């Protein structure tokens, strides 16, 4: 039916124009309808809503009163937080946290040397952002920085003393030697006897800076970072700080960083071992993974603490802090291996067959085809494992390491700030710290998951 026939229709009751749209009735749209369907949908729902509203109001009021309204914000010692001294009910005692904040961050690390910890913190943050921020350039260089440069320079900066100095000198020599070798080979490509002839011809065409593209930046970065540390060491000196003095968030981050840096490569090796067709390799991987996953972390830490010194000759007895670090790294690698195995299993068989039909060997196939895809899809799983690892670092307190939680425990018995509310304040501060870290990481992992699923979205 066309418009013309409508216009000519004889019947007066046929409407000629469209009515203006009416708003939806109040019972199905708008705030009232929302409240009715989401809060008061049934008698039981109404009761539940009222009860939970009451709980929320009472709970929030108590929390706000204790941690904000009644809280003490300034003061020099416990006198400021005692109800009978200041003549009003006292909530949280925040000056205690302010006063002890340095201790919570650095532990007993000497005050004059804390800038070293700060440098490592900055490097750590840089490495994390580099690896996790999607748009950051040069990811491979970032991985090299995070997994090789950062642990070495962190060790040198935090520990200091003769050991670190010797290591630093060797590292500098090594990177300098590599740089010289690299420069020579770039200018005289015919010296590079391992390069096949066609590639060599192409190299000759390019300008020296473009030749041998790949390891150039890695060597340069190692040279710059270790050189800077050497300059710092010459100018300011890096006296030894014993690991017994390390503490607070420094140790918490240290353990988590060591955990992730070692567990990821170990996890990859174990996961590949578990998927291997060679029976002995597979069996050993399975035994290791299932054994570690079957026991609590505390027993692994106790084992590291009491049995590691027995396993090695007495003169090599590991440092008190090194033992739980090894324990955590071993523990985390088993869980990481299972996550990565999940990723390997998700790669379709065609990828393996395609790689093999191109003539790639096992190592090349894994390195170039399989692992890049497998690791990418398990990033959320890796982050979730890391959240677990981060929470589990608190357990080192049980074997006497002063991580963040243990520094809080230690200040609670200090008479300077002994008040009835100190404990609650300290725990609240710790809870906020851990919550923000873990929650932030889980948000990140959800965001990655969404991005990875973008291809499947309709």
């Amino acid at each position, binding site marked *: 039916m066309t418009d013309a026939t409508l216009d000519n229709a004889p019947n007066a009751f046929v409407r000629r124009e469209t009515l203006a749209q009416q708003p939806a009735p109040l019972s199905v749209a708008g705030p009232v309808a929302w409240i009715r369907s989401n809060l008061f949908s049934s008698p039981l729902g109404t009761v539940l809503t009222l009860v939970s509203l009451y709980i929320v109001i009472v709970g929030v009021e108590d929390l706000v009163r204790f941690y904000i309204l009644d809280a003490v914000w300034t003061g020099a010692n416990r006198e400021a937080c005692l109800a009978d001294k200041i003549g009003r009910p006292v909530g949280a005692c925040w000056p205690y946290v302010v006063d002890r904040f340095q201790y919570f961050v650095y532990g007993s690390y000497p005050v004059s040397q804390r800038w070293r910890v700060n440098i490592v913190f900055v490097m750590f943050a840089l490495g994390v952002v580099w690896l996790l921020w999607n748009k950051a350039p040069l990811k491979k260089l970032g991985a090299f920085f995070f997994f090789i440069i950062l642990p070495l320079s962190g060790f040198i900066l935090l520990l200091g003393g003769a050991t670190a100095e010797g290591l630093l000198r060797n590292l500098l020599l090594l990177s300098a030697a590599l740089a010289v070798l690299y420069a020579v080979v770039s200018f005289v490509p015919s010296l590079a006897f391992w390069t096949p002839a066609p590639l060599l011809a192409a190299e000759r065409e390019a300008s020296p800076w473009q030749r041998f593209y790949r390891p150039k930046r890695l060597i340069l970065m190692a040279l710059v970072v270790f050189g800077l540390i050497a300059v710092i060491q010459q100018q300011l000196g890096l006296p030894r700080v014993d690991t017994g003095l390390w503490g607070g968030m420094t140790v918490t981050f240290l353990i988590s960083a060591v955990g992730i840096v070692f567990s990821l490569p170990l996890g990859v090796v174990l996961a590949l071992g578990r998927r291997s067709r*060679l029976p002995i390799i597979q069996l050993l991987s399975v035994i290791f993974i299932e054994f570690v996953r079957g*026991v*609590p972390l505390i027993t692994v830490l106790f084992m590291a603490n009491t049995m590691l010194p027995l396993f090695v000759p*007495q003169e090599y007895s590991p440092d008190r802090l090194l033992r739980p670090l090894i324990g955590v790294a071993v523990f985390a690698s088993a869980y990481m291996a299972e996550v990565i195995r999940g990723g390997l299993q998700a790669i379709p068989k065609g990828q393996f067959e395609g790689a093999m039909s191109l003539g790639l060997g096992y190592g090349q196939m894994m390195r170039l085809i399989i692992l890049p895809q497998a690791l990418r899809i398990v990033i959320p799983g890796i982050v979730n494992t890391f959240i677990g690892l981060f*929470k589990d670092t608190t357990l080192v307190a049980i074997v006497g390491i002063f991580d963040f939680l243990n520094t809080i425990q230690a200040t609670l018995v200090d008479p300077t700030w002994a008040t009835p509310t100190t404990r609650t304040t300290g*725990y609240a501060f710790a809870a906020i710290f851990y*919550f923000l870290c873990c929650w932030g990481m889980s948000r990140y992992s959800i965001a990655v998951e969404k991005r990875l699923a973008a291809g499947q979205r309709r």
Partner: protein
Amino acid sequence: MSSIPTETVSPGKASLFYDPKIRGYVYQIVLLLVVGFLIWSAASNVIENLRAQKIASGFGFWHNAAGFDVNQKLIPFSASGSTYGQAFFVGLLNTLLVAALGIVLATIIGFSVGVARLSSNWIIAKLAMIYVEVIRNIPLLLQLFFWYNAVLKPLPDARNSISLPGGIYLNNRGIIFPNPQFAPAFEWVVIAFLIGIAGSIAFYIWARGQQAKTGKQYPNGWVAFGLVIGMPLIVFLLAGQPLSFEYPQQGRFNLTGGLQIFPEFVALLVGLSTYTAGFIAEVVRAGILAVSKGQTEAANALGLRSGPTLKLVVVPQAMRVIIPPLTSQYLNLVKNSSLAVAIGYPDLTQVFMGTVLNQTGQAVEMVSITMGVYLTISLVTSFAMNIYNKRMALVER
């Protein structure tokens, strides 16, 4: 392309060096040698070090006198007359006790919160979400410290105990319940209870057979309730109420009598069950969401009401998704119960890896025994899980 040579290259005899089979053998032999060497050198170092430190080895300590006391014990144990072997069982039973109760509580809380997160009631769903987020993002150890040091420790001392209805007292030494005293005739009640359970299972099987044959439904729930609760109750009354309570008495300095539950146990139980419940809630939510909406709609189209739809259609399918991760949460709870060591609850780790290890110095034996127990629990559970999974797996073409 004519430049490609057409004649095939005959596959010459590849050198042994490139034979994948030979290479595989070589890799495995090398790995075995390396692992063997590591174990051998570790073992010889252990022997060397133990000799240097004059520490005994072997399991002879098992029958030595323990010389320490444990506050919570399910079997008789005393500092004077008991051995390390008995200490092991005290610790093991305490671990199993807190784990079993924790699993029950965590399941109840976790399922409620998981269902609440999917509730159409906005405020309930948001509250459940906040619970899950807060609980899961704070380390368990901090939560245990909170429950033990910040909630239970500041309770008044025994002289100023808080009196709760039912003769229950609350103070910083724990919760003191009236101690039930069972008369000999109480055995009949227990027997009636067991018969009730057996009877209701038998009735359920019979009723299912009847339903399959005739389509008639029987009130299984009511029959079971009557058999399991009602029958023992009648026996209890008939036998002349063979149960009395010994109420705790408020003395001058302390409470005497009653059944004391230690604050370490309460803190660990509450901490473990609320923590694990946060994870179980997520498992449950994922399981329910995994059942597609079409299943509910199809059940409704068949004329099932919401109750039977849940019971017969949604829950069985959700359980298939829920149970495997649920078991691993249970295992986590068992493993996490070793955090007892931080608040001094005498579980296996605290008693054996802590006290006994410190007294004897025999690290190798203590660590391997303790790890062996947890490992056995884990392996047995995952073995059972595999069997269950095989039975529950979807049977497809």
